[in-house]
Structure formats: C-alpha cells, structure tokens
C-alpha cells in the first residue's frame, strides 16, 4: 500500500508494486481524546468495517509534534480528537490533507465553519465550553464564597487556591488566554491574567490537570473545559461546575487526515464514519460530555447545556493562527509569568 500511495502513477515500480498490495486493509489512527474513548472508537470502527486499526493515543500537542517530525514520511493516516488549534496549525502548515465528507450536511454550523476556516483540511467532531470547577469540600473548609464569574477569581481570598494549565504547554490554557483577550479586550484581558497570576498556586502542564487535582482535593478551583469538570463530578468527586457569567470561549475538537497517508481510502472511510450519529453516540459510553457535531447525535443530560451558557463569538482563524498564538504566548511569558506571586 505504501508504494501505491507514494509512487507516481505510471512508473514501472508502481506497476510491479501493485501486485504486492494484497495486505488486509488497515488504518493507523492517532487519537488525542481520552484513552477509553480512543479505544472504543478504534474497536467500534474495526467492528463496523473489518479494517484493522492501529491506535496511538497522545495529547494533541504531542501528536502535532509527531506528525510534523514525520512529515517527510508520514506514518499515521487519520488524527482524531484534541482541541482544534493544533489541527488548524497542521492545516496551515500543509501537514494534513483536504477532504470534503459526504456527511457534512448532517453537522452543526460550528463544525463546518471549522472546516472552512482551514481550507477543508480539518473538521469539528465535538465542542466544549471553557469554565471552571471547584472542590466543594475544600471551598467550605476554607470558608470561601462560591465564585460565579471570571472576575470573582481575582479576589484576594482565593490566593493560592486557583490552578490553570500553562498556556505554553496546553491548548486549554491557550484557549483561556485567547478567550480573556476576546471577552475583555487585549489590555484588560492581560490585566485579568496578571490578577489571576497572583492567585494561581500552580501552572500545570496538562490542560485538564487542574480540575483533576481539585477532584482529589489537591487544589480548590481549576480553570478547565466544563465537560472535564462534569466528568470529575460524575466520577464521584465533590466538584461543582461553573459557567462564568461574563460569557466564555470554547474549543472545537477536530479531526484531520494526514497528508500523504499510506492508507488514504481507509482514512476517508474512518472520517465519514466518525461524523455519523452511531460513532458520535459512543461518547456517552465513556463519560465524554462534549457536544457532538452531528445534529442527530444524543447528548447527555449531565452535559453542560450549551444553550444556557453565554458563548462569545470565538475567532478561531485569528487566534488559531501560529503568528497570533506566538505573539500572545510571548506577551504572556514576558508580562505575566515573570511577576512575583
């Protein structure tokens, strides 16, 4: 198969190689969602099509790094899950391939917008809104008031109780930074980040770590995607989810086909399948509370109701571009992270 997809048609080699292309169908699947979800997607696709799936789960940043390192000789076929920005960045760098799925008319507008903003090199598969969650036990033990807005987190009594990820290493935290810039404007947004910095006890490396720490009682308030906070509450941890009153940004979990994929046909088959209601309903089996992109897919009653949350008009093209990203991160590094706490 490798030869088939890589070699220029018409050459002698392609002819002789085609004889050997009699392997069982297979697909190398890079997955950036949670482990059990990835497993379930891989096995369900195998059951649905009989194609062998090789799945690797890594965070979206790691997967992006890997795809970039492998660019001259791609090993993966399709990349599913993870926040949309690395997918957009990959599209921008031409690491992923253009594809227009026949399933597209079944999707929500935000999923299609995501695809169109990246020249059809990626597409939305689920979305989740940013917010925060807190450990109710710890909040009570420390006699702290219940926060309900972003600005509440700036109050001095929360000093040492708030955790968020480092925007340099986490897509979630970068979404937070970009959302604050969009909600409050750039200057006031950075003032907010500076005020928050004074209350932060740790910048974690991974995006959902703050709410997990809060669940275990190692931290009080964690700024994360709300569906991550819901998952902790469902798992039995004393976590309450907050949709901040000022409105909030959101992510679009995305999927892309890797440019030069060795199993291009199977990758497209997976792509179409992953956009179907059947595939998207699987999320509920593994406590993934994101909103699916297929209009017909079921949503959980535990999931944050997207209609009650005030969503800002998040500019994915601008804030997903690597230049803007580099600029904001550098500004955050120089103006916020160096301040004493």
């Amino acid at each position, binding site marked *: 198969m490798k030869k088939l997809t*890589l070699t220029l048609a018409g050459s002698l080699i392609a002819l002789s190689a085609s004889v050997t292309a009699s392997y069982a169908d297979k697909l190398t699947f890079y997955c950036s969602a949670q482990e059990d979800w990835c497993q379930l997607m891989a096995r369900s696709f195998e059951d649905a099509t009989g194609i062998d799936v090789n799945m690797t789960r890594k965070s979206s940043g790691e997967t992006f790094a890997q795809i970039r390192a492998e660019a001259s000789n791609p090993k993966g076929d399709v990349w599913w899950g993870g926040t949309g920005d690395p997918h957009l960045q990959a599209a921008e760098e031409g690491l992923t391939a253009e594809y227009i799925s026949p399933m597209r008319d079944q999707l929500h507008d935000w999923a299609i917008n995501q695809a169109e903003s990246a020249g059809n090199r990626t597409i939305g598969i689920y979305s989740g809104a940013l917010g925060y969650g807190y450990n109710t036990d710890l909040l009570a033990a420390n006699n702290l008031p219940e926060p309900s807005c972003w600005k509440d987190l700036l109050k001095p009594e929360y000093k040492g109780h708030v955790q968020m990820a480092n925007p340099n290493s986490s897509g979630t935290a970068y979404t937070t930074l970009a959302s604050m810039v969009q909600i409050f404007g750039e200057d006031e947004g950075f003032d907010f980040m500076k005020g928050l910095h004074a209350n932060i006890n740790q910048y974690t490396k991974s995006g959902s770590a703050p709410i997990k720490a809060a669940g275990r009682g190692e931290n009080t308030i964690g700024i994360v995607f709300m569906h991550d906070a819901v998952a902790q509450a469902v798992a039995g941890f004393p976590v309450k989810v907050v949709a901040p009153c000022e409105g909030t940004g959101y992510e679009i979990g995305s999927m892309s086909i890797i440019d030069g994929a060795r199993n291009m046909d199977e990758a497209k088959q997976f792509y179409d399948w992953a956009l179907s209601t059947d595939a998207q309903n699987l999320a509920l089996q593994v406590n993934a509370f994101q909103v699916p992109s297929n209009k017909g897919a079921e949503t959980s009653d535990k999931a944050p109701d997207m209609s009650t949350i005030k969503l800002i008009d998040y500019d994915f093209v601008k804030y997903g571009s690597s230049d803007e990203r580099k600029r904001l991160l550098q500004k955050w590094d120089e103006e916020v992270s160096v301040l004493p706490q």
Partner: protein
Amino acid sequence: MRLSSTEKTTHPVLIFWIIAGWVGFCLLPWYMLEDGFWSFGWLTDGYPFDTDYAPAAFLIGQSEKLWLAPLVIPLALPLLVLGRLKSDPLYARILILSGALGFGWLIAQGFGIGIRGFTYDWLKVLFGELGDRQYGMGYGAMICATAFLFLFTQGIAARGAVNGDVFVVSAIGGVIVIVTTFVFFPIAKMLFAAFVTEDGAYSIAVFFAKFFDDRLWGLGCLWGARCGAAWNSLFLAICVGFLTTALGLAFALVVTRSGFRYKRAIRALTVLPIITPPFVIGLALILLFGLSGSITVFMADLFGVQPTRWLYGMPGVLIAQTLAFTPIAFLVLIGVVEGVSPSMEEAAQTLRANKWQVFRTVSLPLMRPGLANAFLLGFIESMADFGNPLVLGGNFDVLSTEIFFAIVGAQYDQGRAAVLAMVLLFFTLSAFYAQRAWLGKKSYTTVSGKGDAGVHPLMPTGLAIPVMIVALTWALFTALVYAMIIYGSVVELWGVNNSLTFKHYVTAFSVRFEEEGIRWTGAAWDSFWTTITIAAIAAPLTAAVGLVTAYLLTRQSFAGKDAFEFGTMLSFAIPGTVIGVSYILAFNVPPIEITGTGIILVISFIFRNMPVGVRAGIASMSQLDKSLDESSLTLGANSWQTFRRVILPLLRPAILAALVYSFVRAMTAISAVIFLVSAEYDMATSYIIGRVENNDYGLAIAYSTTLIFVMLAAVGLLQLLVGRVQIGRRTQHGSEKTT
C-alpha cells in the same frame, strides 16, 4: 590464531565475513520490509524478483537501483586475499580498501538517495533528477554493512594495530560504529536544530537569543520571583547526588559491615524503588503528603494547622528522587564496599590502627571510585529525571521537563529544546570530568591474583549508630511509601470512597478461558506483553555492549581512547526526551528507517542504559588486577579467550547488575519512550501515563503494582540464573555458606 597466522590457510573468521557479505548482497532482501523485521511473508510473496523483497544482486540484474552495483567491487576484492599470508602487506591493504570502500559507498548512497530521489540539491544540480527512490536499509544492507566493517577491522588488525588482535580491533570498530549511528548521529541532527531559524536557514544569533533566556538563567528566586530552569536543575541534582550517595553508603555499610540481623530485608527494600515505574512514587507521596494526603490531614487535625501545598515544588521532587535513586547508589556502592580487600584492612589492624582509623584511612579511601560513581549517577539521574518533576514539580521548572514541553508544547520550539539540551549536557559532562579529576590516576586495585581472603571489620561504633539510624529510618519510610502504593491499588476511589476492591486489577488484567484458549481481555495486556518482550530483548544486548566497552576501556590501550570513553558515556548524559525526539528526526527517513517499530525501542534502551553497564564493568574491572589477564595471555590464550574465561567469570556481579538494571529500566523508562511508542508497540509506562492523565489513579497504581511484582520475579530469576556472587573469601558468620 597463533598458528593460523603462520600457516597458509586463511583464518575462518575472515572467510565467514566474506561469505556474509555475499549472502547479504545476493540472497537477503536489501530494503526494509514494510511488514516489520520479523515477518517472513516475503519468502512466498514474489521473492526474489519482486522489487520490494529483492536482494541487491537481483535488483541490479533487473536494471533497478543501479547505484548499488559498485558494491560488487569491494565484495569481490577480499577474494584475492584467500590463501595469502597474514604478514603479506597486500593482505592488510586489500581488506582495508574493500572494507572502507564498501562501507563508505553504502553510507554515501544511503544519505544521497532517499524516498524523494536525491536528498541534496547539489546532487540534483550535478546529475539531474534521479526519477527513482529508495527506502530504509533491510536485512541485506545491514549484513553487508556489518561484513564491510569487520573486513576493515581485520585489515587494520593485520597491519599490527593493538598487537594484531582481531577480537579487540573488531570490538572497537563495532562499538564505534553503533555508538556513532545511534548516539552521535541523532544528537548531531537534533543539535543542528539549535541554529535553525524559523524559515529554515542557519544562524548563530538564534542560538544566543535562546541561550541567554531569562527562563533559563534567571536568578529571581533570590528575591522572591522564580529562578531559571538551569539553576533549579543544578541545585536539585547536587542535593540529590549527595543525599543518594550518603544514603547508599549507609545501606552498603549496614549490609556489609554491621551485625544487623535483617540484611536481606534491607537489600530487598533498597532494590524496590528501582523496579518502580515512574510516577508511582510521586503519586504515593501525593496520597501521603499532598494537600488532602493522609499524613497531611492527620497532622493538620493534630496540630490545628492549615494544610499547605509544600510538597509541590523542590521538596517533593527532592524526596521522590532520593527515594528513587538511593538504590542505584546502593547498587554501585555495595559492589565497591564488598570489593575492598579485607587483607588491607587486616594489615592496618595488625599495625595497631583502631577501627575508626582503619575505616577513615583505609576503607573509605578505597571506596572513592564507588562514591564518585554513585554521586555521578545520582547527579545525572536527577538531571535527566522526567517523571517526578512532572508530577510533583509544581512551579519548580527543571531542564528535562522544559525540554519536553519545548517540543510537545504549543510553541513547538525544537531550537529551544536543543539549547536546553546543550546546557544539560554541559552540566552532566562537567560532573563527569570533575569525578575523573578527583579520582585521578590512583590505583584502587585490591583484588589481585594473589591470595585474598579475610573478613571485613565491623564499623566503629561511633559511626555504626548514626548510620543504622539513618538507614533504618529511610528504609521504614520506603516501606511506608510502598505500603501506600499497594493500598492505593485496591481502593475504589482514593479519598472519596475508601472501600476495598479488586476492580482495577480486573479492568487491567482480566482473562477469559475459551475453547480456543485464553483470551487476554484486560485493557493492559497489550502494553504489558510488548513491554516484557522489548525489555527481555534489550537487557542482554545492553549488558553485552556495556561489558565489552568496559573491557576495552580498562584493559586495552589504543589511540583515541578518551574520545571513545566520552562517546560511550554520552548517551547517559542526554535526557531521554531529547533522545526520543532526536531518534524520531534521525530514524524516520532512510537509510535507517525504524520509527514506529519495536526495534527503535530496543535500540533506545540499549543506548540509554549502556553507560550503566559500562560503569558497572569499569568499577569491577578496575578492582581486578591486570596480572590476571597477563598470566592468561602468557599461557597462550588470545584476548577473546581471556575475556571469556578469566574476566567474565570474575565479572558476574557486574553482569548481574547490568542485566537487572537494563531489564527494569527498559520496563520503567518513560522519557524517551513517550516519543517512540506507536500503536503496535505501546509500552506499559506510556499506558500508565494515560491513566494518570485521566485521573484514574486506581488503575495506574494497580498496573504499576503488577509491574513491580513482575520485575521482582525477574530480578529473582536473574539472580538464580547468574548465581550468587562469591569472591573467594571467608565469610563473617559461620551460619552463612562458605565457598
């Protein structure tokens, strides 16, 4: 060999490599098989004419890949040597010429022609577009390359290098080639990235901008802000080096020079942390001392103080690393402390020195190589450690995690990662040289061919009491941490629902018995079997490469030995994260194309862990007197026989240490692995990280506990196989077995 050099018949080793070269060229598939190294589907699938599987000779026969044709000349040349005398100058010249030509041409064509035709623009300018391509080297190419290498080394030996010793010259050549390929080449590729600007040009200014970054060298912690990662790493590593060496020495002394009754328990306990997967100690510490940890809450209730997050940062990392690396110091020191010849100490006692004087002026100075090695290992391990700072670091940034996040982070700055790696390398190499300077050229040889029997004196009482207290306290602490790990694996949901359950083990390791046999239904089996297989393949290879290298370094002298030693130790000083990324960059494209396979994991383990084998070998060999080799050589053995029959048996402790260490390291390594795992070859540690990331501590700890028991079994088994180590000596107590 003594005879064959004077007779007319040619040495069988030479014939073997000539045949191997032809077999590689004419019979085996030249290129890498897409289905993997061990698949043999090609035998029935169009071989030998299909271009995917064809040997080089068949490719050329079909007018394909004609750039391989010149290899026929260096393959044919050695045939002229057959029947010639070894002393004939032509013998050496022909072999050197054919080896160098063949090897050189293989490398040149490998780098010059890739999957998109010519790799370099100047080749395109010179010859025009090639219109053809080639993939990574397979069996045939590898065997051909090996044959050329050893033809070359035999030629060098025939010219009289290292007394014409074929074994030694070939070993040196082999080690140089594999270390160059798997250490220097990827690192060079990675370090070039430090000078690359965003649009792909090279520039020194980029390097300096990244090097003089405040996040690297800032001294803010002196006035309340944060310090740079470089200072953090350095300070942490020095603390860990001292603490682990001191604790390791305390344990070694308790085990060898005290009347303590439960020595075996101490031995077992101190080996525990080394067989522990990364993160687990960190997780256990969080469960004990975190904001909601058992001990924290208990203390807060008892004294009415507010619980704090003191664990997250330098203190937590320091405790975790000391727990993790003390056993390494212990493993190094126990050999050395046991190896100090009691004759010396008995001589001092006979000369009326008291116990304290004997210890201070005889025993301790003889342990200096061990102490220096232990410190060096602790220092470097701490510098390169990745798991503990990741879990417990808080806002305490260290170089290894910074490198990781420079690469995987949203910024994806390979250049910054390379610069950080250089700083890290500078620190570790400085420690390496400081250690050498301190040891100097003194002789620490105490085990010689002469009679060597006696009993180690006990420690002086003034020393024994504090040493015992320190060692026992630490041992109890370790036991507590491990008890916590086992408890954590059977708790439903830590801190929320403390009811006992085996569900985590069931999720991970359930099996179903069906008609066609056992079905491994648990979620962890895949990564578990892969890990066992890869660790089992890597361990003996690591030990072999390490010990041969140690033998060359201590027993042979040849030009460029210092550079050779530097090269073999280098991979240890480079953090795994950098190894991981550099391997992806270097081995994703021909001529060596092994990313996504199990081979790359095995290779990364060999070269990550080889320095430990080397150091263990050097430490033991520097205690074996050279008179042993000399007598063997005088009696007519060649260097291979001497190595095999004299050195190796005396090195059993070092072999055991190297085998055990490389096996468990392969099972517990994380930093390089996280970049190199693929869907087919997922390792236990990367699976566990996934669970930890998912807040699924129960499953992560249950899996880790299982691994601990597996490794414990492996260590026990290896100990049985290699045998208990007894250097001919009377023992202290009549109760123990004498030899």
